């Protein structure tokens, strides 16, 4: 089993990278790979229940939810970035089953993966 990290630093609205990162992650299960997704910077906006790219006609984030559930894909967000955007725990969409990680732990965390792909 190899571990692969898909880290997204781009905004969930107006750019496709969160959708692409998740689509990539779901495609990894065909191999002996364990994908993990990490939201960095503006990407953390995705986790708030009210974040809906479909408001401006873009692809919804919610299309990923059934796959998150099916594969039990682990999604992390950086705690300090959630705080920066004042995202409270009770505002987080439960489908993300979100875990948080503090910045200090990131170097070791990122190095724990065999392959790392930033979007």
């Amino acid at each position, binding site marked *: 089993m*190899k571990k*692969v990290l898909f880290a997204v*630093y*781009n905004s969930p609205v107006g750019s*496709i*990278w969160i959708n*692409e990162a998740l*689509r*990539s992650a*779901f*495609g*990894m*299960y*065909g*191999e*002996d*790979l364990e994908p993990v997704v990490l939201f960095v910077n503006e990407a953390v906006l995705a986790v708030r229940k009210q974040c809906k790219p479909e408001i401006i006609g873009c692809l919804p984030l919610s299309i990923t939810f059934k796959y998150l559930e099916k594969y039990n894909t682990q999604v992390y967000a950086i705690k300090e970035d959630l705080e920066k955007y004042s995202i409270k725990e009770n505002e987080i969409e439960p489908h993300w089953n979100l875990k948080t990680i503090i910045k200090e732990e990131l170097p070791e965390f990122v190095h724990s993966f065999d*392959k*790392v*792909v*930033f*979007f």
Partner: protein
Amino acid sequence: MHIAIQVNVPPYTNEDMDTAIHLAEVFVKRGHKVSIFLFADSVLATNKLVKPMKIDRNIPLKLQELSAKGVEVHICGLCAQYRGITEDMKIEGADFSGVPEMAALIYNSDRYINLLP
């Protein structure tokens, strides 16, 4: 050694395709197996109908030349459909694939070089 290079952004607007091509050329010369995975807008780099100015480089042609030297060129199929790149438009030697092929490259390659968007 198997070297995989993933590109995500469009050619000509960005340097990434040029970076990937230069790097692939070096690794081919060293006798490594090289695979290029084109994701999102980078699939536009396989459109053989492009007409750059004469003084500029022809990126799809360069990719085709690399493919003739044994480099695998993977095009994310869904990304290509989104951008209207069809079978008859794409350069010789590049093949439509998808996320399963990306997974295989991530699993099997010795080095996976993603050029982040």
